[in-house]
């Protein structure tokens, strides 16, 4: 029937990580953990907007003053992100190829909707991240932000955020974007432990709860900022937006 498939077991650590299904899943999980860590830290940073203009702009300035270190961090995150996306797409294509003929009558026993849509939530997150970088980091979509300065002559991140989210379309894009990110993590956070071998029947239940805890926490944390601007809870230093 089928021909004997010859295999080539890995022998070096890079080969262990890149040539087999488990190795690729490990890289997927590690890059996912890094992205997840960033997403949590970034949320805590952003929430300082609620403390006020001075705190927010001071925080942003501190990050800018990291100088070359900032670029080291950015490149590290970019490498993790690219690994994650590259392997995510590759594994998905391999998985589709592993079942060329599907079932006429397919049922799902316990796979969550989030787990079955990881590639799609992932790709939408990717587009969202690209827009977000153009919008607030490179400020190419709204070049007028670049001239915002606060009383101390610092770049006025605080006002930029309020101007940005005063447009309800932009706010809606952000809320949907972070919503899908949180949803991606409702499977991702539990899944990464299993991929790294850190799971047991008792922990499986806990991991699912932990994943949903972070899903809700991240969504509420991130979405609170555009919501606060739209509802008038966060205003420009002189009031209004």
């Amino acid at each position: 029937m089928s021909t004997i498939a010859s295999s080539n077991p890995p022998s070096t650590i890079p080969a262990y990580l890149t040539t087999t299904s488990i190795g690729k899943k490990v890289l997927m999980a590690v890059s996912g953990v890094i992205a997840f860590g960033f997403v949590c830290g970034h949320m805590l940073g952003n929430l300082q907007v609620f403390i006020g203009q001075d705190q927010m702009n001071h925080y942003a300035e501190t990050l800018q003053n990291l100088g070359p270190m900032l670029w080291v961090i950015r490149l590290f995150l970019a490498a993790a992100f690219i690994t994650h996306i590259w392997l995510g797409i590759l594994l998905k294509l391999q998985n589709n190829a592993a079942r060329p003929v599907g079932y006429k009558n397919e049922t799902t026993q316990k796979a969550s909707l989030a787990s079955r849509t990881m590639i799609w939530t992932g790709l939408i997150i990717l587009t969202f991240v690209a827009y977000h970088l153009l919008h607030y980091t490179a400020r190419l979509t709204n070049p007028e932000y670049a001239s915002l300065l606060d009383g101390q002559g610092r770049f006025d991140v605080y006002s930029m955020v309020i101007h940005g989210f005063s447009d309800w379309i932009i706010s809606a894009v952000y809320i949907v974007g972070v919503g899908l990110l949180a949803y991606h993590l409702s499977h991702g956070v539990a899944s990464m432990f299993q991929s790294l071998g850190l799971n047991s029947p008792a922990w499986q239940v806990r991991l699912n709860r932990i994943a949903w805890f972070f899903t809700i926490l991240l969504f509420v944390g991130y979405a609170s900022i555009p919501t606060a601007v739209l509802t008038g809870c966060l205003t420009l230093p002189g009031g209004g937006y």
Partner: protein
Amino acid sequence: MNLTLHVWRQKNAHDKGRMEVYQARDISEHMSFLEMLDVVNEQLVEQGIDPIHFDHDCREGICGTCSLVINGAPHGHQKATTTCQLHMRHFSDGDHIYIEPFRAKAFPVIKDLVVDRSAFDRIMQAGGFVSVNTGGIPDANAIPIPKYFAEKAMDAAACIGCGACVAACKNASAMLFVGAKVSQFAHLPQGQVERERRVRAMVAQMDAEGFGNCTNQYECEAVCPKEISVEVIAKMNREYLRAATKKS
């Protein structure tokens, strides 16, 4: 009871295949699913139609030869049950039942509902064994094994290698099967000598056969007739990472 069967028919590996509809009449609720198919096949033979081909052997739920995806679930929707042990009392008069082969690139259809699962044999040949080259049978109690490890190994060894995990997996991944086989040895003293080599070779062979990658959705665990837990996959992942850090 009377049933309407929608059955996958495929002449050979190269045929495109299609669903055919057959009536199953006067089926007793005491029959097993395979006995029901035997009755239908007798009727088909009388009508001059090629009988439906399907795999079976022990019909006791221990050999892992029977297969079939019944109404979208490998071995049917009954929990912890092989197709040969699935009784018709779980169906009702007038039901439509969809019967399809296990679907995976690594399990090509040979004929109708029979698929070639020799990929599993080749994975076992790659590392699913303990080498004992000579000597008599050792005394069973000569090597003390803590109860905890003995139980973990026995839980994993309950796998009958039927392939339902692959059939159920959204990615046609064989990780529950390979995880069970890796775990059953990794927990025991006898499995230590070839421990790293085993996981390396079995994972590489699994990939070479064209199985998909696990995405931790646990469909496999839900359908496994022996209720193998996905903890064996976590164990295999640990074994694999452990092997990566050792010279062998």
